[in-house]
């Protein structure tokens, strides 16, 4: 028996400790911040109890980053921030400076490299999004292309503070809704509109039929023998195109270029500021998938944003604005059609029926 000495495999070490990544000004003032100011969109100044100041410059990122760009960020961090930087929970990049006079040159460098600065306070920050056609098998649409198209048309709202309050947009490419699409001011969601196309040839080989059947929340899947093979069938009327069957069984693909597309949702939030966190509600059930620029989607989002910008009060998030003016008026102002699809018919649907005469005409 040959004995080779293999170095012990390193496992379960977890992430590197954050402390070693903190710039000295933060280490000195950790837990001692007193207040902050937003100097201009994208530039924060945090002031410590000790009087020390930290300047953060927030730049947009496409999130999908090449190592080339990350190296560029690293170089900028070396140049201006002693080598320190961070990313935000919405995938922007933040440069952490001790000196106010370095903010302007950093901004210039970022602008030159094509990275807009903004996203703070009452702006539209980066769009939280998912994989789409870049990486996921489930997607009813792409994610990155929609984000790019929408943000191109809304970037003024990122770099300038022109809104009554924060506006958070999210994109998810299927009903799994990776991210917080279900609680965003505006959500862009890929949807299927046809039942899975069953691959009877491979089904029995790659899927466990009982697990598959029980995966369907509406009980639309029944065991069936098709052309002599053990397989399943889907009762079309009972399918609401959630794709859960596909998640558990590759033989149930949902993709359908003619029928896949986009739905638009509005009025969600997660912060507890003023009102409680809210789910996003359906605005537009379906828009076509129209790459590379998704003009219908861009148009729809822009329309909603502009109506919000024009009509909401200061500090009023999208959902708070709509609740104040009422949904009938939201549909009226935006010109969006109210359809049967807007009326909930899921589990707790009854609770969304208007159970009062609090009516606006």
């Amino acid at each position, binding site marked *: 028996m040959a004995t080779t000495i293999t170095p012990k495999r*390193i*496992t379960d*070490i*977890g*992430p*590197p*400790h*954050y402390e070693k*990544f903190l710039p000295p000004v*933060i280490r000195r003032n950790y*837990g001692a*911040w007193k*207040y902050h100011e937003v100097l201009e969109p994208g530039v924060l100044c*945090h002031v410590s109890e000790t009087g020390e100041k930290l300047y*953060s410059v927030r730049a947009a*990122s*496409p*999130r*999908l980053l*090449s*190592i*080339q760009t*990350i190296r560029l*960020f*690293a170089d900028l*961090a070396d140049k201006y921030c002693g*080598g*320190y930087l*961070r990313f*935000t*929970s919405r995938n922007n990049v933040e440069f952490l400076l001790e000196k106010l006079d370095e903010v302007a040159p950093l901004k210039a460098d970022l602008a030159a490299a094509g990275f*807009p600065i903004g996203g703070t306070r009452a702006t539209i920050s980066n769009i939280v999004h*998912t994989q789409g*056609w*870049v*990486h996921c*098998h489930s997607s009813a649409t792409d994610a990155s*292309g929609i984000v*790019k198209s929408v943000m*191109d048309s809304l970037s003024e709202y990122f770099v300038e503070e022109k809104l009554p309050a924060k506006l958070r947009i999210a994109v998810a490419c299927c*009903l*799994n*809704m*990776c991210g*917080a699409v*279900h*609680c965003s001011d505006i959500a862009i969601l890929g949807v299927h509109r046809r039942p899975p196309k069953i691959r009877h040839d491979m089904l029995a080989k790659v899927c466990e039929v009982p697990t598959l059947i029980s995966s369907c929340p509406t009980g639309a899947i029944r065991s069936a023998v098709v052309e002599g093979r053990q397989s399943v069938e889907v009762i079309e009327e009972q399918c609401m195109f*959630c794709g*859960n069957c596909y*998640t558990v069984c*590759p033989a149930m693909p949902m993709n359908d270029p003619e029928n896949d597309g986009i739905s638009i949702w509005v009025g969600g939030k997660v*912060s*507890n*500021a003023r009102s409680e*966190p809210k789910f996003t509600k359906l605005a537009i059930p379906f828009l076509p*998938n129209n*790459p*590379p620029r998704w003009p219908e989607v861009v148009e729809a989002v822009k329309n909603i944003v502009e109506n919000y910008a024009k009509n909401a009060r*200061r*500090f009023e998030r999208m959902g708070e604005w709509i609740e104040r003016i009422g949904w009938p008026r939201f549909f009226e102002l935006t010109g969006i059609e109210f359809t049967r699809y807007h009326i909930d018919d899921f589990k707790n649907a009854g609770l969304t029926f208007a159970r009062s005469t609090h009516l606006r005409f």
Partner: protein
Amino acid sequence: MDEKKPKTELLDELEKGPWPSFVTEIKKATETSPMATDLLGQLELSYHERKGHWKHGGIVGVLGYGGGVIGRYSDVPEQFPNIAHFHTIRINQPSGWFYTSDSLRTLCNIWERHGSGLTNMHGSTGDIVFLGTRTEELEPVFKELTEAGFDLGGSGSAMRTPSCCVGEARCEWACYDTMKLCNDLTQAYQDELHRPSFPYKFKIKCAGCPNDCVAAEARADLSVIGIWKDDIQQDDEAVAKYAAEGLDIQRDVCDKCPTRCMSWNGELTINNRECVRCMHCINVMPKALRPGVEKGAALLIGSKAPIVQGALLSSVLVPFVPQEELFDTIKELISRVWEFWDEYGKNRERVGELIQRVGMANFLDAIGLDPVPQMVTAPRDNPYIYFQKKSENE
């Protein structure tokens, strides 16, 4: 690289405009990786055909780990052989997503050697995501990552990498040390992260205050959200200054307070007894108002995306835990929650769904927590009470 550039007339459209372009990123990556070139090609195909070109899943990973890698294969590998395999690797991010330039360069170098050179900074759960490599590269990537001090994140029916807001590192409102807690929890649950053994995924997110900058309310099986118990700290001079500078305190602060527990007549009075700690007034006047000094966090349970029983928001489990006790309390609580979930959770049933199925009261019994009114927006409105047979002194 001397690969032929694919024709990308549709994708090229997405290099125009002010917003940074992911297409440009992929093109940049083609400098160092032929995978990026084929990704560009396949994506262009998807744009033409309006559908994705990835096969369903596929289980791949590194030795001894049950997750952290999402297997992915092209369904047109003949056309795009370099992305026949295109697995992603999820990597535990450092708390708060802070980096040094050197640590980033280390990551880039590893990924240049072993993958597509494309990343997500970061994934929606918070991980560093390395986007696209071949099965045989997984072990080498892993080896180099761990040597550099990084480790894989979670996938499948396992714990996922916790994440947190920037907290005390840069925010005056943090009611506890989010980054420390997040890091400690991530370290404490390495085994659960790397070896899926749950009914389904389990996510933890730590926000320093009710603003919830990490969206815990919406997407964490356990949300730790900072809060204070005593009164808002108020600096009347600073309030006056805001007023003098033109802030309409009545309209923009008092009238937006959800409980209308503030009044303004040249002086600001807060009825702290009725304040629900929503943060609004503090957000608007950060120099004048601050959270109280008795700080800690509320523990909430069970949020998730809609698949399959409908989306859930996190709901209050423990209204207040002092900051010093957070780590221990959470560890104890989680162990009880997991025990119950292990025993009663159905396959692919998230904790929040389980609670709804068995009922909150039964769940509390099982994990040994007493019911308190803070757990509900209101008591039940239906008379369908399962009176227990052995009832105390009713």
